[in-house]
């Protein structure tokens, strides 16, 4: 048997094929085909109402898909409940962060690593990696999540996602409502995650941030993928096209 034939084929972190999903009787997403390779950061751009958040919710199993394939690291998650998907397959930083505000920063982080709660060594290691990335979070670990600024809360939300050690990280408009300085810190954190080999699907409205952080971009409009390409290839004309789609 040749060496080539024994090399296992590594499934992409995310593969969507012919995906239709929506609410009630209405489809929001139509025939979505998208993939995120391992260690790759991909941006999903689009105007308000394009279906970006619905797409992330469909991957998390919060919106049931009507047709199509959703595979995460080679696992078909289209029939899995959300809590199973969240256990090491997909982690999410939702729009608005949605931290558990009644709890401390550290409790929020530990809750993120719920499925690893019996593996104390792994939990400690993940907690350390969060604190290395966000030293300010370690400083405020005992504070209630409500006592933090928007930027700091966003760090906790990213840390909570990291604690589940997922195959794929989803971030829904993490720059929303943040000051310019906080946005840059967040971009640096995302770049650090990419350097650590994490697979990221980033939903953003800020094209500059998406181009800075991601390897490739998809543009979603009216629930369909209308453009895609490598971030490096986006020239002035492509940028103008994206801006036009974003309105």
């Amino acid at each position: 048997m040749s060496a080539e034939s024994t090399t296992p084929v590594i499934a992409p972190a995310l593969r969507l094929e012919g995906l239709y999903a929506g609410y009630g009787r209405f489809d929001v997403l139509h025939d979505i085909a998208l993939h995120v390779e391992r260690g790759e950061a991909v941006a999903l751009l689009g105007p308000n109402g394009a279906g970006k958040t619905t797409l992330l919710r469909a991957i998390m199993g919060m919106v049931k898909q009507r047709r199509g394939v959703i595979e995460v690291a080679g696992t078909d998650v289209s029939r899995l409940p959300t809590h199973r998907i969240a256990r090491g397959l997909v982690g999410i930083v939702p729009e608005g962060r949605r931290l558990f505000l009644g709890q401390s920063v550290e409790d929020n982080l530990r809750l993120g690593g719920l499925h690893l709660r019996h593996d104390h060594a792994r939990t400690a290691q993940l907690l350390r990696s969060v604190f290395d990335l966000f030293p300010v979070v370690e400083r405020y670990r005992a504070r209630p999540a409500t006592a933090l600024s928007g930027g700091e809360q966003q760090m906790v939300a990213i840390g909570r996602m990291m604690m589940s050690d997922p195959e794929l990280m989803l971030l829904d408009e993490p720059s929303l409502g943040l000051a310019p300085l906080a946005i840059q810190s967040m971009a640096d954190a995302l770049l650090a995650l990419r350097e650590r080999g994490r697979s990221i699907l980033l939903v953003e409205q800020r094209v500059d941030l998406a181009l800075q952080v991601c390897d490739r971009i998809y543009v979603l409009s009216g629930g369909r993928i209308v453009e895609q390409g490598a971030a490096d290839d986006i020239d002035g004309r492509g940028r103008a096209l994206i801006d036009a789609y974003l309105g």
Partner: protein
Amino acid sequence: MLLQVLLSGLAIGAVYGLMAMAFAIVFYVTRVINFATGQLLMVSIMITAALSRAGLPDIVSVVVGVLASTVAGVLIYLLAVRPVLRFDRFSFAWLVSTLGVAIVLQSLAAIIWGPTSRGFPALLNRDNLHIGGAGISVQELLTIIVAIVVLVGFELVRRRTLFGKLGQAISADPEMASAIGARVTGFAIAAFAIGGLLAGVAGILVGPITFSNPYLGDTYGIFGFIALMIGGIERPAAAMGAGSCSASCPSVRTRSSARRRPTGSRSSSSWPCC
């Protein structure tokens, strides 16, 4: 006299407190008030009394009675709460559905065992202890101890364990809790089961001092709910405390009226509901 009133009040309050706790734990996780909680107490009393009359040993009757109220709690969630929350997570339809279950349980009990009161096994109510001149039955003492154990246990779990913090997280944002890997439905089932268990235990503790009656659930359900409202719906421990405090006043009143009762009337119990 004061010690006697205090002990009696505490014993009664412990039952109200357990009922308040049964309400509060369900609300703590699911944001639903199970208005059939009083009827779960009645279920454990009626089944325990029926099995005891059928000749089963008391311990077996008690275990089956408490198990029955626990299972009934889970069934209430699965049949009357979960379907309406699935339809609309933010609707208050559970208010009507749990009240409906309360009426159904009460009516079923009346059909099966008849609407009149019957006896309940004495269990530990025969033995009395004397503390500083005040008398207290072993049953009443057990009631206080159980309430304290439940209260301390609950607070320890809530404050010190990830499990307790997860309960809070599910209560605050069930969808996000699910997105971090929590089995929200499993937690809700567990909350209703614990609610049923506590109501069932309260029933066993109060049973020997009262009768088995299909309409008993209303009284204890209302008292438990009042304790919950006084203590704070989001603070099960405070609800338990409120149950104990609120029971002292009726206890004093019952003591006063007991002294005015004619000789030979049933005055051995300090329980206002009897």
